[in-house]
């Protein structure tokens, strides 16, 4: 397993798109910190990058990579190797190299300009999101044989998590305006890793606005040990469940 992981990582790290992604992140975060006169504004712009660009690049790149390595995966499967270890190596390889790209591109500038709790939270959340969307991409690709279909599904999943889900939440709020929705909202947010990540960062960033009654409910929850444990476990489940399910499917998949 270690061996395949090593080959996947070296292969991805030589990939031009990953290089471009890293350089883009680096340029974006440096310019964001350099141009904005206060660095907390820079963090906000970076937040958008983390919440939108990172999931998009990760899910699409991972799907394309897996489809492009279909024959290679076939070759590996015909070798005396466990299918599960092939699949997990592929996942860990993708996750590790894309997280590394994120860390170099966005993490290091953040560490330079904002070496505080907000910065650390941001890096941690960015890396978690990277891994989550690799995991989701694995799920999408194992289910769709057709490349175009699979990449389409990946884009739809991204669109769903970054836009449609929130639209749905907003709709829900309008519909149930007469009920106390704060607590259900916390539960609902667990169903969207992007929302959960956003809330985790915002609780550190926009303290004043979050201290309103509603915000206080969120802060009371997410600020406590239980809340943080809840968020981290939810995010980890977003990694474990798709990977586990995809690995299970891959185990009996016809190649």
């Amino acid at each position, binding site marked *: 397993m270690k061996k395949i992981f090593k080959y996947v990582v070296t292969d991805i790290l030589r990939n031009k798109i990953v290089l471009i992604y890293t350089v883009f992140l680096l340029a974006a975060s440096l310019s964001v910190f350099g141009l904005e006169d206060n660095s907390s504004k820079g963090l906000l712009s970076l937040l958008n990058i983390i919440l939108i660009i990172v999931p998009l690049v990760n899910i699409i790149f991972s799907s394309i990579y897996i489809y492009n390595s279909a024959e290679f995966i076939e070759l590996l499967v015909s070798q005396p190797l466990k299918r599960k270890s092939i699949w997990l190596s592929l996942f860990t390889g993708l996750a590790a190299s894309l997280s590394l790209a994120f860390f170099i591109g966005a993490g290091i500038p953040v560490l330079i300009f904002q070496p505080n709790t907000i910065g650390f939270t941001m890096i941690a959340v960015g890396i978690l999101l990277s891994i989550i969307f690799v995991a989701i991409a694995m799920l999408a690709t194992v289910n769709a044989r057709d490349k175009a279909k699979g990449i389409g599904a990946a884009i739809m999943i991204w669109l769903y998590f970054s836009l449609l889900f929130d639209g749905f939440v907003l709709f829900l*709020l309008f519909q149930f305006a007469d009920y106390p929705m704060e607590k259900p909202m916390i539960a609902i947010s667990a169903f969207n890793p992007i929302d959960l990540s*956003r809330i985790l960062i915002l609780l550190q960033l926009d303290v004043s606005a979050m201290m309103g009654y509603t915000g206080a409910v969120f802060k009371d929850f997410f600020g406590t040990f239980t809340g943080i444990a809840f968020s981290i476990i939810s995010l980890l489940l977003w990694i474990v469940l798709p990977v586990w399910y995809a690995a299970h499917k891959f185990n009996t998949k016809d190649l």
Partner: protein
Amino acid sequence: MGGYAEMKIIFFILSMFYYCTCIAKTIPVGSSRKYKTITAGIEASVAGDTVLVDAGNYKEKNLVIKKSIVLKGINYPVLDGEKKYEIISVKADAVVIDGFRIVHSGISSLQDLSGIKVYDSRDAVIKNNILENTFFGIYIQNGLNCTIENNRLTASSTEEQQSGNGIHCWKSDSLRIINNKITGHRDGIYFEFVKNSIIWRNTSAQNIRYGLHFMFSNNDMYVSNIFTNNGSGVSVMFSNKIRMFSNYFEENWGDASHGILLKEISDGDMEGNYFAKNTSAIYMEGANRIFMKHNTFENNGWALKIQASCMEVVLERNNFIGNTFDVGTNGSLVLNKFKNNYWDKYEGYDLNKDKIGDIPYRPVSMYSMIVEKYPPAMILFRSFITSLLDKTEKILPSLTPENLKDNAPLMKKAF
């Protein structure tokens, strides 16, 4: 500062006046003196005398002063109310209480037991006292031309019912509340039916409810006070002609908490105030003809929550910096005016280089309207969909009030 110097001179002349006109004598009180208790000392005095109290512990139940005397402590003698009594009751004009440590007044839900209470008198001066764990601190009831200066009031109750107000003024006229520090009370400073008074350079912090609470009090002015970290900020209600200059409102956090709440206020004037890190810096309801200039709003959740019931509120040359939302409102009717303010979120341009933006700024975002109506929508804060909504709304306004805009926003900070 000039005003302070002048004040000092006036005080000086006033005290000279006292010494010259009265043939005043000094009555010392203390364990080694002729009068062992303050009660005895006061008994022996006549109007115009000074009762000088040595340091020590005095448990005199309720001290009632019915003569115009000066009661002065040396090295803060302690007056202990044993958690049962009102400690000093002033029932004569021109009484001076200076330099005591007043502790443990009684707590009662029927009477407003206080550290020092002034009843129906004029010209009282209460200064340089330390009040600790009193129910009400200094209470002026029906006073005229009284001065409360340099006192330090601390209470440590955590429940509203167990705590009275720090400086409580009721139905009074021409008061001066200067340089007091109040913490841990229910309201730091409370005004009800008080007119023509000034509140100057006080610090009111960590009080359970309001740092300053104004009701039915007209023609008052407060200047250079600091209000931080109070349960619900500052509340000014049902009053006219209030002037507020150069005050600090900071870190008032919570849903019902505001830097300052203005309710049913008319003809107010707010200048040079500084609002930072409040959940909402100013919440206005039924406010009319308020003129706001040169105020700074920094890092607040909402800089301004202005309900549709407000009229003719004018905002001119204020700075809005780093606020999550600049303005929130609940209706579409806008009878207020925004002009020449600096908004850090302004994305317009200035082609003719007159330092005024060429397109109007709309400080109300669609999302802030949604949050106003559906508070749990806060969970979508800074999500892709809400910024998308805001951008769409900027191009095609439909939900946000059409007239709520600054037609001439500044390109650089107003001051």
